[in-house]
């Protein structure tokens, strides 16, 4: 465990000196958190919410059901906010992918992996250190942003019932279960792709492809094609467990000492 912590500390002290990484970890979550709150704030008293509430029929039927005891305006606010909640599932992917891409490709370009592999550290410890160095800040930032988002909503929204809806078990499941699973998928893919490319930006972009299914769900929800509910989240999580297992297996295979030293170019 001590060596994993050593790797994590080293990764952080190195990658956080990179402005792209700092942007991904600090500014992006800030923007993702502030924008919905600003929109919510502008909706207050602008009559916009009332207009939407007036046309509640335009809101997907399932939303009307989910809104339950919410008034028309509260439901409209919740509808808008829930669109942005998906961003909190993108964060756990983008952040570790960025960190892992810069970390692993950086090690390749400076040829620092061989001296590290020559120390009495196991491959699992090294890979775990690298993965956790990406996943931990991603989850902390995501959960922190979600907390700020919820507190901000509670302060701005017309009714505390909107906040209550944001703390619905479905969203908690999404943020606290789906988020880590997405992070693991992102970091595993970043490890695999980073072993094949020599530019961290290319690795980052290719690894970000893991977001495509998530974006598809996001778009489908925005267009009212599907409605994200607890069942969808659970199926998504179960699918991710399988995908994560496969990705971790392949990433570990690619992260073997001999493979790194002889095939990583």
């Amino acid at each position: 465990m001590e060596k994993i912590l050593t790797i994590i500390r080293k990764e952080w002290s190195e990658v956080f000196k990179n402005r792209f990484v700092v942007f991904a970890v600090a500014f992006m979550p800030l923007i993702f958190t502030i924008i919905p709150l600003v929109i919510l704030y502008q909706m207050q008293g602008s009559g916009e919410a009332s207009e939407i509430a007036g046309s509640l029929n335009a809101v997907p039927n399932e939303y009307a059901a989910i809104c339950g005891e919410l008034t028309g305006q509260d439901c409209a606010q919740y509808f808008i906010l829930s669109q942005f909640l998906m961003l909190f599932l993108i964060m756990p992917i983008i952040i570790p992918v960025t960190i892992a891409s810069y970390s692993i490709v950086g090690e390749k370009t400076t040829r620092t992996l061989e001296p590290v592999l020559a120390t009495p550290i196991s491959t699992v410890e090294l890979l775990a250190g690298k993965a956790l160095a990406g996943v931990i800040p991603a989850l902390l930032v995501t959960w922190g942003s979600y907390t700020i988002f919820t507190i901000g909503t509670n302060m701005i929204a017309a009714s505390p019932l909107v906040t209550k809806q944001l703390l619905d078990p479905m969203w908690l499941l999404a943020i606290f279960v789906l988020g880590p699973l997405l992070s693991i998928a992102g970091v595993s893919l970043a490890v695999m792709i980073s072993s094949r490319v020599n530019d961290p930006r290319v690795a980052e972009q290719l690894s970000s492809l893991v977001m495509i299914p998530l974006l598809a769900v996001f778009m489908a929800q925005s267009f009212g094609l599907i409605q994200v509910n607890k069942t969808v989240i659970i199926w998504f999580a179960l699918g991710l467990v399988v995908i994560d297992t496969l990705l971790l297996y392949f990433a570990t295979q690619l992260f073997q000492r001999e493979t790194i030293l002889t095939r990583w170019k």
Partner: protein
Amino acid sequence: MNDMITTQSLTKKFGENLAVDQLSLSIPPGEVFGLLGPNGAGKTTIIRMLSALIGPTSGQATVIGFEIGKDDYDIRKNVGILTEAPGLYDRLSAERNLGFFAKLYEVEDIPSQVEQYLRMLGLWDRRHEEVGTFSKGMRQKLAIARALLHEPKVLFLDEPTSGLDPEVAHLVRDFITELRQEGRTIVICTHNLDEADRLCDRIAVINARLLALDTPANLRRQLFGRSVVFHLVKAEEKYSKVLEGKDFIQSVKIIDDKLVVTLDDPETYNPILIRDLVSHGAEIRFVGELRRTLEDVYLRLVKTEEEK
């Protein structure tokens, strides 16, 4: 005392490519051992196998009594390696770089070990600076410090002076000499034949397989014999003929005003040769031994191998 490194039929294949072929050798404690060979000869692969970075395809090897493939953790804990590229973290300071590796090597008193080697290699005053600002020589010195942090008994140095300016290269060589005096076993992989000649107790010339293994002096002797050069006022054919008849002489050549005589034991036979030449009227200016360089040895071995 047991050998620090032994290999028996050590072989490594990468796909169809035979990188190391049936290597058998042993290296006693305290020896500076040179690995010479052309690019792609398998030198780095040998070092990687012996430092438990990669496994062999077949054969066995032990390092400090630990068997590669079985005791890899112990091997990595007890050997130091200077890789071909320094491999340092540019965004971290020199002190932080060493501190990081000291933790991975499970060094007990990290601050004092880091300070000791930074001072020893003249980097203490720049310990807080990012390594990215360092010159190539400073980076190489820092990489050497890293290889020594955990006080390894066996040290593998892959091209330790490659690309360094003469002053830093000299400093590194002196440092290697100091390490030898401390009793460490050192394996050097180098293309610098003069360096190998000066530093190494024994040298293995390899090209996937072992071509030759001996002390530099013995390698010269085995390949070229020993030659004595008689510098004459005027070299004539008759002097050559005087010497050619003797059974202890292998060959005689006239080059300018010099007679180059190849023979096995010049210490014994030189007085006889001098006496005979003088008695036949030769005027000898001085006598010296023709010293073949390790480069001559190396080139002949590699060329012979290529011709096969």
